[in-house]
C-alpha cells in the first residue's frame, strides 16, 4: 500500500512538467531505445501470431465451409486482444526490464544522488523521458503488430491455403469497425503503455541499491507488468465488449 502511494506520487511528479529542449533530446534517445529497437521482436512475433491464427482458424472454419470468415477472425482477434496484450508483454520483457536495470544501476552507483547534488532533478532528467517514451512507443508498436499480423494471416490464408482474396478483405472490412475495434484496441494499448512503463521505471527508482536488489526489481517488473496487463485486459474487455 505504501509502495502504491509512493508510486502514485512518483508518477505525478515525473510525468508533469514542461519538457525543455534538452528533455526533448533525451526523450528522442529513449524513444530510439524502447521503441525502434523493440520493433524487430514485436514485428516478428506479430507475423508468426498472425500466421498461426490463420492456420488454426482455417482448420476450424473449413469444417463449416466458412473459411471466408478467416480475415474477419484474424483481424478481430488481433485488433481487440492479441496485439495490445502480446505487444505489451513483449514490451515489458524487452524494454521494461532494461529500464528497471538501467535506473537501478544508476541508483546503485549513486549517479542519481550526485545529480541531486549538482542541482539536476533526476525525476525530470532520467525518469520523465523514459516514461514518455514508453507511453508513446507501445501504441505504435501495437499498430505495427496488428498490421504485420494481418499481413501474416493473409500470407497463410490466401497465398498458401487458397482462401479467396476478395472475401478475406471484404469480410474483414464489413465486420471491423474503426472506432469500436481499432479504437478500443488503441485505448487498451495506451493503458498498458502507462502501466508497464510506470511499473518498470518505478521499480528501478525504488529498489534497494545492491546487485541483488537490482535483480529482484527486474524480475518484479516483468512479473508485475505481465500480471497487470492480463488483469487489466480482462477488465477493459469486460467494459468495452462485454456490455458491463
Amino acid at each position: 500500500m505504501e509502495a502504491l502511494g509512493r508510486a502514485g506520487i512518483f508518477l505525478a511528479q515525473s510525468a508533469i512538467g514542461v519538457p525543455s529542449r534538452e528533455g526533448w533530446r533525451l526523450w528522442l534517445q529513449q524513444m530510439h531505445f524502447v521503441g525502434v529497437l523493440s520493433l524487430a521482436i514485436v514485428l516478428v512475433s506479430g507475423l508468426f501470431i498472425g500466421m498461426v491464427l490463420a492456420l488454426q482458424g482455417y482448420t476450424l472454419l473449413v469444417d463449416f465451409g466458412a473459411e471466408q470468415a478467416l480475415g474477419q477472425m484474424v483481424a478481430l482477434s488481433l485488433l481487440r486482444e492479441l496485439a495490445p496484450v502480446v505487444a505489451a508483454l513483449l514490451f515489458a520483457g524487452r524494454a521494461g526490464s532494461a529500464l528497471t536495470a538501467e535506473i537501478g544501476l544508476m541508483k546503485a552507483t549513486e549517479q542519481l544522488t550526485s545529480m541531486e547534488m549538482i542541482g539536476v532533478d533526476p525525476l525530470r532528467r532520467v525518469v520523465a523521458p523514459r516514461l514518455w517514451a514508453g507511453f508513446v512507443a507501445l501504441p505504435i508498436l501495437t499498430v505495427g503488430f496488428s498490421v504485420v499480423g494481418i499481413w501474416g494471416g493473409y500470407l497463410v490464408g490466401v497465398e498458401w491455403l487458397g482462401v479467396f482474396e476478395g472475401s478475406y478483405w471484404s469480410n474483414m472490412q464489413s465486420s471491423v469497425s474503426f472506432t469500436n475495434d481499432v479504437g478500443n484496441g488503441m485505448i487498451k494499448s495506451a493503458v498498458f503503455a502507462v502501466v508497464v512503463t510506470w511499473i518498470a521505471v518505478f521499480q528501478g527508482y525504488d529498489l534497494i541499491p545492491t546487485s541483488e536488489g537490482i535483480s529482484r526489481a527486474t524480475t518484479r517488473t516483468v512479473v508485475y507488468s505481465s500480471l497487470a496487463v492480463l488483469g487489466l485486459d480482462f477488465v477493459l474487455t469486460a467494459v468495452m465488449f462485454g456490455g458491463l
Partner: protein
Amino acid sequence: MRRSKTMEFGVGLFMIAGILGVIFLGLRVSGLTLSAPTQSFQLEANFANIGGLKPRARVTMAGVTVGRVESIELDTEWYDARVVLRLNSELEGQLSRDSTAAILTAGLLGEQYIGLSVGGDPETLAAGDTIRDTQSALVLEELIQQFVSNMASN
C-alpha cells in the same frame, strides 16, 4: 552528433511507420473511405421478425450493395421491428411504391442482409417513405418447429 542524427532519423521513421499503420488499419482493415460520404436518402421498412439483422448490415438489389441498415428499433404501435435503410441517392425516386424488402442470409451460417426488389407501380418511393411489402427473416427454429408439429399431426 553523427550518431544523434541517425537516431533522430530512426525515431522519425518509427513514428511515420506508426501513422501509416493506423491509416492501413483504417482504410484496408475497417473499410473506411477517404472520399466524402456519398449522397444518400432514407427509407423505412417494418418487419414482423428481423432474426439476426444488425445495424450496418448490407442492403442489396440484384446482389449489388446499394446501402446499409442505419438503425433498428421496436415499433411500439404494431410491435414489429422498424428498420431504417440508408440508400445511395441515385436510387431516390427510382424505386416503385410496391417494391419489396426481404431479409436474406448469406450462405447457411452467414450474416443477414436486406434484399430489395422493384415492383411495377409507376409511383415511386420518396425519402422517408415506408416499404409496405416486406418478408421477415427465416428463423431456423420456427421452421423446425413447424416441421416437427406437421410430423406429429400426420
